[in-house]
């Protein structure tokens, strides 16, 4: 025990004192926050540009339709010729000229309308103009069928279906996605941690091999102790780094927001896909006040304690499984270039977990795919955490699935660590052989 502690301490200090580690620890938050601030700033600049469209409307069918919006404005030319209008549009520096010639009816007018711009027009300008015409055409056609403009406006009501569970609880739209995002955040954290610090464990094993200190050490301690100490020491260093990152990044972000006066909600609206991790949350304010309250209630209902406890359990087990595989790989090879063939099979289940999680758990947290992947031990740490914010029991993850998933994970953990330790023990004393899977299988049989 005492020796294990010594190893953990050495591995931790060796990692924490490493120059590149220190640089990464303190530089990353600055880079990360800088990036966010830069994007926010650019979005702000981008937003402030208003496009002005000149309209030369010679027809009588389309009028009072060109209302200014946040990003577009219209200027109407009256009683000037087309060439003149073109010249003045350019002279005034307007974005484009919409020419609507006279025609016998709306259909022909719409068909002959033209937009002139300096270069290919941006899509939102086109969308807006096409929308205006489509709207007007729909109105006209309905009118021909005997529907008045007033009736049309009344028909054009948006409708949202309200949903509830059988026991009368109201459901909120999108809450599943939000919950999955929260769980997904935890899952993503686990994946990143495994990839970054598993790699560190592997490199540290390779370093011990190439510096030939390994035999000196294992004449004093058991190889398993060394492997375990290395994994624990490295992950403690990783947790330190993550803690510094989270703390300093949130501090910096807070300062940056104060300093640059950037409205995060504005960013959320500006991005068209309102469903990136941060934006998913900020897209909410579009719902009415009571809606926000409801969402907040719903978020409070997420079993945070369960989620955190499961996070710790899945994190520890998942990380130990993967990092012992990384350690075994490090022991099997002589240098980092030989690791490629072994690394891919490790990354694969992790990637699969993330993608399956984001696609299938979001749409249906308790569907067969989601259940299968949350039971399979190599993906369960990530996928199960995405499902858990829904709670346990009715409407959430059945208790047996959670217990089964953890049990499978524990069994896999024991099996993998046992196998990895065997490969590690043989591998650290093998030099000059480029290992194959067949070779590794042979090592497993050595006593």
């Amino acid at each position, binding site marked *: 025990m005492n020796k294990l502690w010594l*190893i953990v301490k050495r591995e931790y200090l*060796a990692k924490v004192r490493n120059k590149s580690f220190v640089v990464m620890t303190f530089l990353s938050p600055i880079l990360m926050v800088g990036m966010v601030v830069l994007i926010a700033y650019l979005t702000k600049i981008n937003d402030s540009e208003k496009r002005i469209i000149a309209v030369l409307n010679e027809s009588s069918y389309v009028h009072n339709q060109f209302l200014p919006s946040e990003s577009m404005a219209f200027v109407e030319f009256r009683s000037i010729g087309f060439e003149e209008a073109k010249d003045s549009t350019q002279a005034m520096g307007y974005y484009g000229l919409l020419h609507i010639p006279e025609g016998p009816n709306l259909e022909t007018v719409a068909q002959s309308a033209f937009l002139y711009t300096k270069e290919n027009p941006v899509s939102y300008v086109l969308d807006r103009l096409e929308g205006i015409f489509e709207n007007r055409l729909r109105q006209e056609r309905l009118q021909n069928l005997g529907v008045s403009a007033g009736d049309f406006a009344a028909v054009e009501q948006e409708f949202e279906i309200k949903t509830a569970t059988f026991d009368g609880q109201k459901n909120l739209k999108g809450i599943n996605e939000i919950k999955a995002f929260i769980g997904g955040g935890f899952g993503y954290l686990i994946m990143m941690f495994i990839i970054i610090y598993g790699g560190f464990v592997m490199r540290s094993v390779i370093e011990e091999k190439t510096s*030939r200190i390994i*035999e*000196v*050490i294992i*004449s*004093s301690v058991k190889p398993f102790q060394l492997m375990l100490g290395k994994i624990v020491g490295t992950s403690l260093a990783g947790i330190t780094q993550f803690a510094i990152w989270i703390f300093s990044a949130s501090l910096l972000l807070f300062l940056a927001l104060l300093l640059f006066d950037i409205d995060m909600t504005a960013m959320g609206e500006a991005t068209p896909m309102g469903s990136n991790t941060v934006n998913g949350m900020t897209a909410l304010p579009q719902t009415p006040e009571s809606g926000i309250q409801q969402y907040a209630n719903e978020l409070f209902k997420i079993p945070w304690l369960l989620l955190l406890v499961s996070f710790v359990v899945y994190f520890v087990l998942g990380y130990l499984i993967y990092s012992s595989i990384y350690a075994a790989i490090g022991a099997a090879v002589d240098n980092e270039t030989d690791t490629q063939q072994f690394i891919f099979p490790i990354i694969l289940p992790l990637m699969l977990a993330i993608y399956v999680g984001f696609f299938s758990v979001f749409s249906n947290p308790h569907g067969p795919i989601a259940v299968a992947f949350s039971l399979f031990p190599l993906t369960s740490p990530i996928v199960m955490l995405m499902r858990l914010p829904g709670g346990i029991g009715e409407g959430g993850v059945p208790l047996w699935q959670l217990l089964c998933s953890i049990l499978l994970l524990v069994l896999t953990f024991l099996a993998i660590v046992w196998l990895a330790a065997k490969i590690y023990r043989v591998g650290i*004393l093998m*030099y000059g052989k480029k290992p194959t899977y067949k070779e590794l299988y042979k090592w497993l049989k050595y006593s």
Partner: protein
Amino acid sequence: MTPILVAEQVSKSFGKHAALHDVSLEIPENCIYGLLGPNGAGKTTLIRIINQITYPDSGRVFFNGASLAPEHIAMIGYLPEERGLYKSMKVGEQALYLAQLKGLSKNEARKRLKYWFERLEIEGWWDKKIQELSKGMAQKVQFIVTVLHQPKLLIFDEPFSGFDPINANKIKEEILELKKAGTSIIFSTHRMESVEELCEYIALIHKSQKVLDGKLSDIKKAHKNNVFKVGLQLNGHGDGLLKELQERFQILESIFDPLEKQLDFTLRLPSEDTSEALTHLTSLANINRFEETIPSANDIFIQTIKAKGE
């Protein structure tokens, strides 16, 4: 006196490859024991078994009379052939770490390190990183780390590699000093001249089997092949005499110096008995040299390995 280490019919194989087959050894206390053998013979496997890095498939090992157990690790010091230190760690810190892994307390380790650093004249290195040291310098640190916890049994695998002659000599003296202080030492090397110089006992391992072991002086006696170096001072008729001698004795090689009238040759006798040969030679010329050649460890090594055949 209980032998420090006894191996009884130790076998170990990796897959189909047998690394050790039925090897039995007895290493007396407080001696320097040479463990010899060609590359890949199984020496390192045996050493690793003694260090409990691997375990034998069958057979038993006893340390100081007791069955080899984890608590013996602290009583063994091992300098592997494939050795190194953490490159980016400071010398002192690293030595402290390795000493603590062997069970020394931090304070005790610091005190002993100070003594050894002074003894080997490397006091100034405490805060240097290994990567700033030359190979020989790092070897000195490695040597100190190996002996620091005052083990009862020291195992040196090629201890002199990487040292310049001056430092190699210094390390050799330290090893003899340790032996004087009561330590038993296993010494594995290819450099036969140092075997000759240091070892009292040797064992020769070839193709995973022990082919020879015992006291070096006994082994040498057993390997005597009755070859003698002879020098004769002649009175003129060199060629004729040599011819006559060749008819009578088995002459291995000969040199005749006509100016000095000196004939040197080696001859092999059918038995240890030299009286007949001497009488005959005395009658022919003036003998100014007659010396039995004792085979060197190197000769024995090569001879034994060759005799075992490929």
